[in-house]
């Protein structure tokens, strides 16, 4: 048991890596063994993530001091070696990731995993990148994991083929490659003055820098934050997102709902570690940029005619909301923002999965035809025979779902409630606690300074986002479910409906168990507020000797 917990932090990286590699060895036609391997690996990853969250919570003291587990890869201690660090925030992100991936894998059994080759391997490699990015304690290693997840997401975006996807991939790859260069520039500049890549040690040395070095390091951090903001789709760096997410296949778009949160996570981590060291992370400009992102998301939602595009703008809005909470500098807003993130990631992912099924409400939808024109080029490249026609109903496997339209409508309503933050679901609790924290942060009436606190802007944007989401979603929902032109009863399969129900149920559980969840998130936010514990544990310093 002790041996296993010691190696727990590396499992979320190693498990999908091995699974992805093993899946490469099995031919595409051997579906059953491939599915069994993927599913058992996903369950193992979920168990690992749950174990990590459980150990980092305050329920089990003693295994990892202060809820921080450090794993020295190859037993090379920090700052010489590369370390993986589990704290409450990263454990939580890994858990969210595993839940989403499980839902996405189950969803794609129906047809998506046959629309191109190596789908499951690529998904596993995406998980390697995501989990690694959440866990690593090394700046350059973060870059490497970013690239792994990006490389996998390039291929996944192309999955299924078609001119639309290829065109959007072109933009997606170009933007993200350029962002990777910005990432490298930032890392190199920080290294040149800090002399280390270990994030905890950078935080220590940041405070001891001369003024000249400090300028270079700050410029590096600013360039680095551009890379993070591109990933998090912060305005004006997020124009690539709606087109790409609109073009991606439903289960892939659902996974992409969390890849934007990697950028948010990186900014949150950097702002925590370099908190009192006057950095560009978490400054005033981030706050206003985040507000602009929210406005962009709101306007985009109102302007969208297709559901996928609308949900893509919801992703932008949720990125903006969390970034605004980070940028406001109010520590009380971090825990509600994390809660909001949980709800919005699950809800948007469920929404993306839902859109894949809702498309079948309409006869001969234009978008599907367009996609189906060209067979995936990968099939010919890998010579695995003719691809199955992904849209012929006979080709689907699984059990048909009774009352399909009712299920779709109900799931749509649940997702809409979650996304817009209406009671009684988790979205409401999240927005309510965010607004409450923002009101608490307002300057008291009659106190010195301007009476119009900048928090008002956030409150207005939050409420406006809910209203705009409601308007846009009811418009699209009415057209989708109520207009009778060309409507047909879709054939849904249990394996497609179950993941959506699973994600919605998790949101419901999050609502019911809001108390324990908030307690955990509060302690996660408190740990972010006190980076000393992180630094001390990573560098293996004794109490008091740190910093």
């Amino acid at each position, binding site marked *: 048991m002790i041996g296993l917990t010691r190696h727990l932090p590396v499992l979320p990286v190693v498990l999908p890596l091995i699974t992805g590699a093993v899946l490469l060895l099995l031919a595409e036609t051997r579906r059953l063994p491939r599915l069994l391997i993927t599913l058992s690996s996903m369950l193992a990853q979920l168990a690992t993530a749950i174990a990590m969250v459980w150990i980092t919570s305050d329920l089990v003291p003693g295994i990892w001091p202060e809820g921080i587990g450090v794993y020295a890869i190859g037993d090379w201690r920090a700052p010489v070696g590369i370390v993986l660090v589990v704290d409450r925030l990263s454990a939580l992100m890994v858990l969210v990731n595993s839940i989403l991936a499980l839902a996405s894998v189950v969803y794609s059994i129906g047809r998506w995993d046959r629309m191109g080759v190596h789908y499951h391997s690529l998904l596993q490699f995406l998980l390697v990148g995501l989990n690694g990015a959440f866990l690593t304690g090394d700046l350059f290693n973060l870059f490497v994991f970013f690239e792994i997840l990006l490389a996998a997401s390039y*291929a996944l975006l192309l999955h299924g083929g078609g001119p639309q996807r290829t065109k959007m991939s072109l933009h997606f790859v170009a933007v993200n*490659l350029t962002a990777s260069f910005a990432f490298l520039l930032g890392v*190199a500049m920080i290294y040149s003055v800090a002399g280390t890549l270990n994030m905890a040690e950078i935080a220590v040395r940041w405070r001891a820098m001369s003024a000249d070095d400090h300028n270079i390091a700050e410029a590096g951090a600013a360039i680095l934050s551009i890379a993070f903001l591109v990933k998090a789709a912060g305005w004006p760096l997020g124009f690539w997102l709606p087109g790409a997410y609109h073009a991606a296949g439903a289960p892939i778009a659902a996974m992409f709902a969390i890849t934007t949160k990697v950028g948010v996570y990186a900014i949150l981590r950097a702002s925590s570690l370099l908190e009192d060291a006057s950095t560009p992370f978490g400054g005033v400009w981030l706050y206003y940029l985040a507000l602009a992102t929210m406005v962009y998301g709101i306007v985009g939602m109102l302007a969208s005619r297709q559901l996928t595009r609308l949900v893509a703008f919801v992703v932008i809005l949720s990125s903006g909301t969390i970034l605004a909470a980070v940028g406001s500098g109010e520590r009380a807003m971090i825990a509600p923002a994390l809660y909001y993130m949980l709800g919005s990631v699950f809800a948007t992912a469920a929404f993306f999965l839902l859109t894949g099924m809702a498309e079948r409400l309409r006869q001969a939808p234009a978008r599907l035809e367009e996609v189906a024109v060209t067979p995936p080029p990968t099939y010919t490249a890998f010579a695995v025979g003719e691809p199955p026609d992904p849209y012929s109903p006979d080709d689907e496997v699984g059990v048909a779902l009774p009352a399909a339209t009712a299920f779709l409508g109900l799931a749509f309503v649940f997702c809409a409630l979650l996304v817009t933050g209406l009671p009684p679901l988790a979205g409401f609790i999240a927005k309510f606690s965010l607004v409450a924290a923002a009101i608490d942060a307002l300057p008291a009436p009659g106190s010195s300074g301007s009476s119009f606190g900048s928090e008002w802007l956030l409150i207005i944007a939050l409420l406006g986002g809910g209203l705009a989401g409601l308007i846009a979603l009811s418009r699209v929902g009415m057209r989708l479910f109520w207009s009778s032109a060309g409507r047909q009863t879709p054939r849904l399969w249990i394996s497609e409906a179950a993941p959506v129900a699973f994600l919605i149920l998790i949101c419901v559980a999050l609502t019911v168990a809001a108390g324990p969840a908030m307690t955990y998130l509060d302690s996660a936010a408190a740990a972010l507020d006190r980076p000393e514990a992180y630094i001390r544990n990573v560098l293996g310093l004794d109490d008091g000797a740190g910093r």
Partner: protein
Amino acid sequence: MEIVVALAIGVLAASGIWLLLRPRTFQVIIGMSLLAYAVNLFIFAMGRLRVDSPPIVDAVSGAVDLARYADPVPQALVLTAIVIGFATTALFLVVIIATRGMTGTDHVDGHERDL
């Protein structure tokens, strides 16, 4: 030497960014490659520019004077960055060729600009 390296990085980055903003996919990928060169040189320069100093400590000598050696970390970083950049550029090339085949144009938007 500093001015030469700085100029090289500057010229590479400037032409890379200019090409990146051009409408043809071929220009974009060449711009991307030039930008990658600039970034790699930049990382390398961040380990300080020095002549005649090896990055690997000589095992024979007894007492090691670290000041005589170059910083090996940026060189390792450059190596990783080159590999990753190379792989992603290759993938980008595949996407570009696929787009060209599917849309029949080499414009980055998949269609010629409406005049």
